[in-house]
């Protein structure tokens, strides 16, 4: 397989993520499929940041621990990562700041000499790297023109000077005859999936790793036809979203664990009042503030069980950008079809990593909610056969729309009568049948690798990328449920049937998916868990799986 991994490291404020993204675009223009991982602590200046850009001829959704090239803007990038270098690997470094064995370029001197700003060392590094990879200058120039927002001429001069300082390329990176794909993050895929399914409003309070959804949609409000709102708190967020849904706007909210904890009281209101709303729950390590800018799959059981009282919800867990796009669209449509809360369960690793995006956009279409036909007296909570009461919105002269957090009659007036209470609870829960039928029309459990293998790697969400590659390497089967509530237990059992060893792979400390399916009588044989706030890389997981199998 033709592939290459590059690590670029420096301190916060060096523009590492930006440089990494530009390198990703460069490799994308050569026809490679990209996975981009960004590792950064929760601070604005100092510390140590690094990004890994992995380019491959085939689609990938994971990075590797080991890399072919390190671009070092600080000494830490060498000290912390040189043990990752593959045989034949190379370090390209700023010889004004870093001591290392490899190819040193006076990046700082170049920038200073051309009167650039210190952050433009990243531009110089890109120039040097491009030459090291034998990428034509014209390609670099095009990419820079497309990505640099300010002082393009100066940036080009800096990049070209560094480009010319590298005398001999040391990786002859072949151009592939493949189409170029858009490079988007999981958060961007979630945003676009929601828009494609008719999103009108996105409401969120900043919280890593969900914040980029707010930033992206706010920056593209007019291009995408979306209104974004940043309220006073997560409680404000979710109540605004329910108010907006009541008024008829398709609304999504996004947060991480702590913010979602604040929203759970109102989650239950969406259950009682039957307000459609989509939650993006992008996990990060807890408990509490935890490790804000790193990753964990630690909130599966929290989300599945969140909210007081009994009501239906849907939880989908995408594992790459395409799934994020499709499943967010599905979540939006299900919310409006069944007037329930739905969840897109992401994590830092999915939300903030960047993928080559190869989705069939037309697969996501906004599906109309069942609207009131205007006949007779409107009853918001009409007790229907399938439990779905047709919608009308305030402003309709023929309808009085009464929504409520209290138990209520069909009209929406408070009730404490036992028959009414039981009737309405049944009506709401009856929607589950239709929901299951609707979900069954979609792919709910995915299988990868060798379908004949009796050894299965069971995973969910962002862990899928590493699992798929390990399974392909070892001839194993991967089973990935996309829907986690209501759990598609029959499909899951079928996918697992015939296996004699189920290895559960999760980025958490207790094996939450294993626990969830055990309540349905499915038990795993082994668990490979990682909970140091880092995602599984392909090579690390490969070793762990081999250990379990030996």
């Amino acid at each position, binding site marked *: 397989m033709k592939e290459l991994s590059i690590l670029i490291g420096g301190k916060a404020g060096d523009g590492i993520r930006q440089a990494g993204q530009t390198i990703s675009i460069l490799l994308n223009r050569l026809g490679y499929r990209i996975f981009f991982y960004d590792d950064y602590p929760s601070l604005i200046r100092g510390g140590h940041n690094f990004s890994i850009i992995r380019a491959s001829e085939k689609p990938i959704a994971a990075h590797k621990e080991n890399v072919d090239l390190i671009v070092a803007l600080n000494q830490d990038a060498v000290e912390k990562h040189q043990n990752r270098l593959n045989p034949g690997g190379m370090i390209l470094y700023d010889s004004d700041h870093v001591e290392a064995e490899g190819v040193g370029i006076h990046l700082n001197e170049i920038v200073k000499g051309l009167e650039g700003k210190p952050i433009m060392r990243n531009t110089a590094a890109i120039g040097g790297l491009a030459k090291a990879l034998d990428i034509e200058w014209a390609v670099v120039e095009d990419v820079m023109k497309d990505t640099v927002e300010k002082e393009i001429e100066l940036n080009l001069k800096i990049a070209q000077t560094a480009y010319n300082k590298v005398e001999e390329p040391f990786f002859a990176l072949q151009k592939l005859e493949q189409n170029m794909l858009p*490079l988007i993050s999981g958060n961007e895929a979630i945003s676009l999936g929601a828009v494609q399914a008719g999103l009108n409003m996105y409401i969120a309070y900043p919280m890593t790793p969900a914040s980029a959804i707010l930033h992206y949609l706010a920056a593209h409000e007019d291009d995408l036809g979306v209104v974004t*709102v940043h309220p006073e708190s997560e409680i404000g967020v979710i*109540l*605004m*979203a329910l*108010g*907006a849904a009541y008024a008829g706007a398709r609304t999504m909210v996004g947060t991480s664990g702590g913010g979602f904890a604040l929203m759970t009281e*109102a989650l239950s209101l969406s259950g009682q009042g039957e307000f459609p709303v989509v939650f993006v729950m992008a996990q990060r390590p807890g408990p509490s503030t935890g490790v804000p800018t790193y990753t964990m799959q630690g909130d599966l059981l929290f989300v599945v069980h969140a909210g007081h009282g009994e009501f239906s919800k849907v939880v989908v867990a995408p594992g790459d950008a395409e799934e994020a796009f499709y499943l967010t669209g599905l979540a939006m449509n299900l919310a409006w079809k069944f007037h329930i809360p739905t969840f897109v369960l992401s994590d830092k690793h999915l939300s903030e990593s960047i993928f080559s995006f190869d989705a069939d956009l037309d697969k996501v279409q906004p599906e109309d909610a069942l609207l009131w036909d205007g006949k007779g007296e409107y009853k918001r909570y009409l007790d229907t056969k399938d439990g779905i009461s047709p919608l009308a919105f305030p402003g309709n002269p023929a309808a009085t729309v009464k929504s409520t957090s209290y138990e209520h009659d069909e*009209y929406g*007036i408070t009730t404490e009568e036992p028959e009414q209470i039981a009737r309405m609870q049944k009506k709401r829960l009856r929607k589950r049948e239709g929901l299951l039928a609707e979900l069954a029309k979609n792919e709910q459990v995915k299988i990868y690798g060798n379908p004949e293998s009796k050894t299965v790697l069971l995973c969910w969400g962002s862990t899928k990328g590493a699992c798929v590659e390990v399974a392909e390497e070892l001839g194993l089967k991967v089973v990935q449920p996309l829907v986690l509530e209501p759990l598609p237990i029959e499909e899951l059992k079928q996918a697992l049937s015939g296996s004699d060893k189920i290895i559960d792979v999760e980025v958490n400390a207790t094996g939450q998916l294993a626990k969830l399916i055990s309540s349905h009588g499915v038990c795993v044989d082994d668990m490979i868990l990682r909970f140091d706030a880092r995602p599984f890389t392909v090579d690390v997981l490969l070793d762990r799986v081999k250990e379990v199998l030996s």
Partner: protein
Amino acid sequence: MTTVKELGTYADNTWCPGCGNFSILTSIKKVLAGLKDGGFDLSRVAMVSGIGCHAKIVDYIDVNSFYSIHGRVPPAMTGIKLANPDLVVIGHSGDGDAYGEGVEHLIFSAKRNINMTYFIHNNRVYGLTTGQFTPTSPPGFKGRSTPLGSPEAPMNPIELMLSAGATFVARGFSGKIKHLQDVMLAAINHKGFAFVDVLQPCFTFFNTYDFYKDRVYELEGEGHVTSDRTAAFEKAGEWTYGEGDRIPVGIFYQVEKPTYDETLLRGRVPVKLKLKDIRPVLDKHV
């Protein structure tokens, strides 16, 4: 002429006899009836309430309503207004609701000057949870959670709203129905965030009717200039929710400023937004 009865529902009213909420209900119905007779389509009204005795008001009035959860009236109102700015959004909260559990939302509504109206049924006691002190209970108030007397000084919501940026700040008294209706109508007609603290007795847990009756006077007869912020603060300080001889009611402050909904929406109406093609945006990611 639309009658108060026509705006009612079949729900049984469960407020205690003598409750100040009856006057507030009648007042808002009369105001809405008047608007309807003037040609306003009441289907454009969306009423939001919180949790507590006040909140039952939405069960007793036949308009669109969102019966929210405790303290969370303003954000639900905000969501409705932003999604469809053509709606006239009216909120009702209790004092525990607005000044306790949900005070952040109250402050932000004023700060933003969102075009909506918020009536606080302020009986200065928790009624539905049977008699505890609230943020506006008088000093030393003996409630079931404070048998030795409230250890806190009361909040002055009029001063709070003036500080926070509300562009319409008023107080009413449930025992002065005609005056209350005038204030309510002015609040609804105000473009921007209109806040009205409505003093009401709780006949069961804190009967303040006689206390207010003897002390309340109308600002309108005193030559108070409502655009004068300093004068508004002065009047707001005249009674600080404890003892006192004179309690002003009426409009303390009213000015016009840009509204949040207009600024944020830039003429867009989210419920009418048309789907856009995502491809041009996606193309920029190659």
